[in-house]
């Protein structure tokens, strides 16, 4: 069989002196080399040499976590390039937006990619969280990784929210004004938190400086670190969840029970949920190519979607921020509009109690719902109670978000989006 042309070219390079110095294994031919390829490459060693077939089923994970990760990479890449032009000054930030659009090569495309990736990342991190819940993948031993996941979800919101202010247009200014005033409703610490975020009482240069630093250094660094822990824990907790894994797990012998005068190899010290290579060999396939190729295909799909959105739809840019001309209604970013809708009923209950309880409940969930049933299975019947409660909260959040996004007009009054209304004349008095 003749190898396809790219493959033969690749092989030529790989056999050259330079190629051999870079790739220790090269394109693997045998199963041994397939394992070596995974283990000996820095980029691939994060993943196991063999992977359970169940983990590869597109219908199980839907690729949601990986999509979020890819969006994070795209955001870092485009964001770094945008930083070469952006100036975090209230006087110049808006002008740099205009320059990106009108004179910087591919500037508009970069900004569009960054914007749409950011929205998509918030969406896909939420979907990933739902997937993990509905497949019971947070149950022991993955409790702590779920908590890290919730933290990553909050970091994603923080990254998106801090980035929202940077264009310094009306949309940015008023969304952050509304968003931070929701933070200010918390008792005792609320006003302090708001003051800390804004570096003052109103959104101004200090707020822009702080949001910029948070957006480009603090939050990406923390998110990157947490992400590494998240991925590392996936492997240490036994790979992706799958049905019947509880029975697969070898009972861990406590260290104290082992003879103390013997030296132990690393494998002997590893936790019991480490994937058991060879226990059910017919369930497992080599990560190269089955996992790695699927991951590459998913990346191409994500890249294509983001490019497509960025080429045909421009990121919004409204008028220069004007603190004395609030739009009516002033709206927070879409993922906070459910919250804003709740705040319109009661600042304290909607802005503090409900979101506070929801986040706490999410964090503590795996420590209460810890029975290992229905793991690795979508909507397991045995878990009907937990699934019902979660679904009710989720549907409520979606409904409030839709109301806040589409059905709220001037003075947060009820409007029906299908009725095209005359925009109210700007009143000067």
């Amino acid at each position, binding site marked *: 069989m003749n190898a*396809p042309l790219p493959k033969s070219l690749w092989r030529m390079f790989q056999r050259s002196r330079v190629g051999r110095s870079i790739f220790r294994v090269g394109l693997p031919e045998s*199963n041994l080399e397939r394992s070596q390829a995974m283990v000996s490459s820095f980029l691939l060693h994060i993943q196991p040499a063999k992977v359970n077939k169940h983990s590869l089923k597109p219908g199980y994970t839907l690729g949601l976590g990986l999509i979020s990760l890819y969006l994070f990479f795209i955001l870092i890449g485009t964001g770094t390039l945008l930083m070469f032009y952006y100036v975090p000054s209230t006087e110049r930030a808006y*002008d740099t937006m*205009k*320059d990106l*659009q*009108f*004179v910087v*090569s*591919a500037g*508009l*495309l970069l900004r569009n990619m960054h914007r749409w990736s950011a929205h998509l990342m918030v969406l896909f991190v939420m979907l990933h969280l739902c997937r993990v819940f509905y497949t019971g993948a947070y149950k022991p031993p993955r409790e702590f990784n779920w908590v890290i996941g919730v933290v990553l979800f909050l970091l994603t919101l923080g990254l998106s929210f801090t980035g929202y202010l940077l264009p310094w*247009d*009306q949309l940015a200014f008023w969304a952050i004004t509304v968003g931070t005033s929701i933070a200010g409703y918390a008792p005792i610490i609320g006003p302090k938190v708001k003051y800390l975020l804004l570096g003052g009482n109103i959104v101004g240069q200090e707020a822009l400086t702080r949001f910029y630093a948070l957006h480009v250094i603090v939050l990406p660094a923390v998110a990157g670190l947490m992400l590494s822990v998240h991925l590392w824990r996936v492997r240490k907790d036994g790979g992706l969840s799958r049905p019947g894994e509880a029975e697969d797990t070898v009972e861990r012998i406590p260290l104290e029970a082992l003879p103390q005068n013997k030296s132990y190899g690393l494998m002997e010290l590893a936790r019991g949920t480490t994937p058991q290579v060879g226990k059910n060999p017919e369930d497992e396939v080599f990560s190269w*190519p*089955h996992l790695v*190729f*699927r991951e*590459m*295909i998913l990346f*191409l*799909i994500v*890249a*294509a979607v983001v*490019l*497509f959105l*960025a*080429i045909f739809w421009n990121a919004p*840019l*409204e*008028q220069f921020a004007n603190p004395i001309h609030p739009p009516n209604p002033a709206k927070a970013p879409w993922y906070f509009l459910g919250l804003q809708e709740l705040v319109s009923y009661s600042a304290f209950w909607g802005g503090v109690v409900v979101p506070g309880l929801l986040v706490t409940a999410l964090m503590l969930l795996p420590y209460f719902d810890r029975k290992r049933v229905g793991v690795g299975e979508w909507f397991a019947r045995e878990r009907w109670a937990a699934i019902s409660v979660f679904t009710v909260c989720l549907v409520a959040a979606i409904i409030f978000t839709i109301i806040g996004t589409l059905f709220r007009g001037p003075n947060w009054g009820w409007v029906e989006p299908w009725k095209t209304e005359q925009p109210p*004349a*700007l*009143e*000067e*008095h």
Partner: protein
Amino acid sequence: MDTGSVRKFYGWFTVLGLLVGGLVVLGYYKDEYREWRQYQLKFIAEETRRATTPEQKALAAAIPVGVRQIVLPDLHRVDRCTTCHLAVEDPSYGGYPQPLAYHPLHDQHPFEKFGCTICHGGQGRATTLADAHGYVAHWDQPMLPLRYIQASCAKCHEAADNPSAPELALGQQVFEQAGCRGCHKLGGVGGIFGPELDKVGTRRSADWLKKHFLTPAAVTAGSGMPPQKLSEPDLEAVTLFMLSQTGESAPGYYASMRVIPSADEGQQLFQQKGCIGCHSVGGQGGKIGPALDDVGLRRAPSWMMQHFRDPQSVTPGSVMPKFGFTESEARALTEFLVHLKERKVASTLPSLISPIDRGHGTYVKYGCTGCHGPDGRGGVPNPNSKTAELVPDLIHVADGFTKDELKARITNGQREIPSLDPKRPPPPLYMPPWGSTIPEAEIDDLAAYLISLKPKGENLGF
């Protein structure tokens, strides 16, 4: 190894790789072939067509294609209009269709110093037709229609001082005489019923303004402003004057250039700055400084210029303050003083006229006309007021008020206007307190003027 399933991957890689590659090419194409490129190519083609010698043809072909911009840090602008309007400085392009037309006035307002948007509006940083001309969502300053371009002169020039902007001057005159200030503040002077007009030009379009003057309630629901009866030229002019109110002024270099130095301008400055307080002309005025009647014979223009810049530098020990005149203001004043002899200015200087005449000026200046009518003849509707549902005329105030009572009324206003029918809403217009706006001396003049309105000899009839 199951080669079939690996084959399947290569198919996916090919399809998706081509898709991503195609999108990257499409993104590059959209980014690279921007709208302005076609105009630049058109310009180069025209230059090539005109070229007769091979050298000229080579020059035309070597015109670089790229964004052109005028960076104006003092004006907080970057104007990229010349990216498409490539021939604005080349008179041989006079009469060409846009975007290649020649733009006159380069001598007075060199484009490399002024850019384009300071006069024409629009979005200087933009490089597409729709965005640059500003007729897009989220851009509040679209291009000023050429019909109203004189409005931009007011960013630097006094309305009355620019002979090239007669309509602007007319507009200001209409504004001052129609009594707009009775309700609206402009430059901090005026009434409190209507909104301030300092930046109205950035908020309102010409069409809106015209509708607003003729039928205010049609564009602002519930507006209490009375419809204005304006002739067509006056309507256009006052609209233009409103458009000129942008609150924007040009600093630094532009400020020093803004006065068109002339003896007329000089006379106006002479009156505004209160020179007559210390100096006398025609025997009228202060005695602190020397009389100025023959100063043009005694002093050289260069001496006067230096004197305006820094009086002590040419007259040590002089008590005249440094007024901080700009160069062109100093030139205008010098021009005025040199020609003082032939101008007979004494009779037109403000401190030399009677309190009643000054009071009339005050009456017009603060827009009393807006409610009480020209010369106090009344007539503006004030629904449900006891005075025949009109703002009362002022012809007979002398019968009901002493001068001091009148001054108190002007100073303190009258908030409650008696209603004709208590069931209907109270009258919308009332007398605002003017004490904080009009200086006391002017209120005194105003009272004198109002008392003088009573027709002479009327009492004899009783």
